[in-house]
């Protein structure tokens, strides 16, 4: 376990900063079912943090707690050094936490460009009357946001489908558009819910490359969920392993790989 509050340097020489988000003793119940049981971990600035575990381990629930879609019964969420009060999901998003969804939640009726532009809504400050006049501030604002969006579209190599309605895209590209929309918000923390789910090997490799590039190019802090062990181990700096709602491991990929409890969870040892 790392307990260096100043951060650390990764194997490939990237400097990881202080704690951005800290989950303290989170417990989440749905009626009698305990989805998350007393879990604590932190996410540091600039790192790629993975939450892994077998199906039903509570990974998605954890991501939904971070993004405010679920409210835990117990525990605290700390973001940038202060305890987060009870917030609705859109307020969490406005704080700078962007996310993607396991089952892709895009605006199907809109073009790719429009979808990505919605990621910039928080940066549009002019009011409706200024926009109606389409003068000065409103115009420069739209131009600036448009530039930021075009940069991301370029970066994720989706220029050729800019004007295509999202509903016509294949699955892999939709996932990429969703990533673009989340990135457009220039998030302080980017949450990816199974970014590789349902992809073939080639698409998985593409997505892995994009996740690494995003982290490298924009310095974005990323927390991702995945149940494909192989992909995650190559990608992430530190890994939290969950099983049946409990945390059974936390550390660098190598540490986790050699953790007996983790091996048992994945290979299936009876829980008695």
């Amino acid at each position: 376990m790392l307990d260096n509050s100043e951060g650390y340097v990764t194997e490939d020489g990237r400097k990881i900063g202080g704690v951005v988000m800290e989950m303290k003793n989170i417990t989440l119940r749905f009626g009698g079912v305990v989805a998350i049981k007393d879990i604590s971990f932190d996410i540091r600035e600039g790192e790629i943090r993975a939450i892994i575990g077998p199906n039903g381990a509570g990974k998605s629930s954890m991501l939904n707690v971070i993004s405010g879609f679920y409210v835990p019964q117990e525990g605290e969420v700390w973001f940038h050094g202060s305890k987060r009060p009870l917030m609705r999901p859109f307020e969490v998003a406005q704080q700078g936490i962007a996310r993607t969804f396991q089952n892709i939640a895009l605006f199907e009726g809109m073009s790719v460009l429009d979808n990505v532009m919605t990621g910039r809504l928080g940066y549009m400050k002019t009011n409706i009357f200024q926009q109606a006049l389409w003068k000065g501030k409103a115009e420069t604002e739209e131009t600036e946001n448009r530039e930021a969006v075009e940069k991301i579209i370029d970066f994720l190599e989706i220029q050729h489908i800019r004007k295509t309605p999202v509903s016509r895209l294949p699955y892999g590209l939709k996932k990429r558009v969703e990533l673009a929309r989340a990135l457009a918000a220039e998030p302080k923390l980017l949450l990816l819910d199974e970014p590789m789910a349902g992809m073939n090997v080639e698409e998985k490799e593409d997505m892995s490359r994009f996740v690494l590039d995003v982290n490298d190019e924009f310095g974005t802090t990323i927390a991702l969920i995945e149940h494909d062990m192989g992909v995650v181990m190559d990608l992430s700096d530190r890994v939290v392993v969950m099983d049946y709602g409990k945390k059974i491991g936390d550390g660098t990929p190598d540490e986790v790989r050699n953790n007996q409890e983790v091996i048992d969870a994945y290979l299936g040892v009876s829980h008695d």
Partner: protein
Amino acid sequence: MPEQLVFAMEVILNGLMAGVLYALVALGFVLIYKASGIFNYAQGVMALFAAMTLVGIMNGQVPFAHLINATFGTHVHNFGWNVPALLAIILTMGVMVLLAWAVQRFVMRHLVGQEPIILFMATIGLAYFLEGVADLMWGSEIKTLNVGLPQGINLWIDETTFNIFDYGFFIDNLDIVATIIAALLVAALVAFSQYTKQGRAMRAVADDHQAALSVGISLNFIWIMVWSVAGFVALVAGIMWGTKSGVQFSLSLIALKALPVLMLGGFTSIPGAIVGGLIIGVGEKLFEFAIGPLVGGATENWFAYVLALIFLVFRPQGLFGEKIIERV
């Protein structure tokens, strides 16, 4: 030119103008349906309520006068002033925004995630509630509404057509104004939804709630905004219909005429509402003109519904509506 054809031209023109008024009401339905999936039965009553509020404010009527007098034994009826039309319209718009907030806060917020039929029934309740409130607030007598819109026959068209066809067309000035205002309204609505931040957020919410939340859009705010915009459309429709036929409770029934318009145009399309309105307007006037005399007239009462029925058989999503595909 044969006489019949000239008559038909006049009928078509008048039909187009009537269609614009139907479209105005249908537009309010489409806006709310698109953004929240709610079929707002109360749209017609909202138009009535807006028109009554406008008249009440313009005449300086004391709201709830009857209730106040009955409770306190007073005899207040009128503030004794007249509010200029433009100011009254702005104040009425304020009332419609308040109404939008109240609907969201006290009704719709508690029904998030419910079946569409439940939401629909809530709006039926809302319609009757609002009708009662309007009655209590402003009284139930028929009132005339005059915000200074021109009315009566357009002499220029009358003369011009007389010079060409030897027969002067009767076109009401109010209908021409209504057409212009409706066109402006539609252009403004389209510009709003396509080019403004709020419009983009509105389309986002209409498309996917979860995704909208994840990019920081407050659903609550957007829904209040949509109901406000629908309130504004209701106000415009209320002014037009109120000026045309007086502000009275039958005004809320024009909502029923919007139904066939929506079935034709599709529930999710703004252009659809316009085109649907025009088709119904022209269709019923032409039908009455051509077939009416053969079947004893009064076809305008049922023609629109029959047309809608035929459409339902062949194209249930309407002309412009989103295609309904059910995957099995």
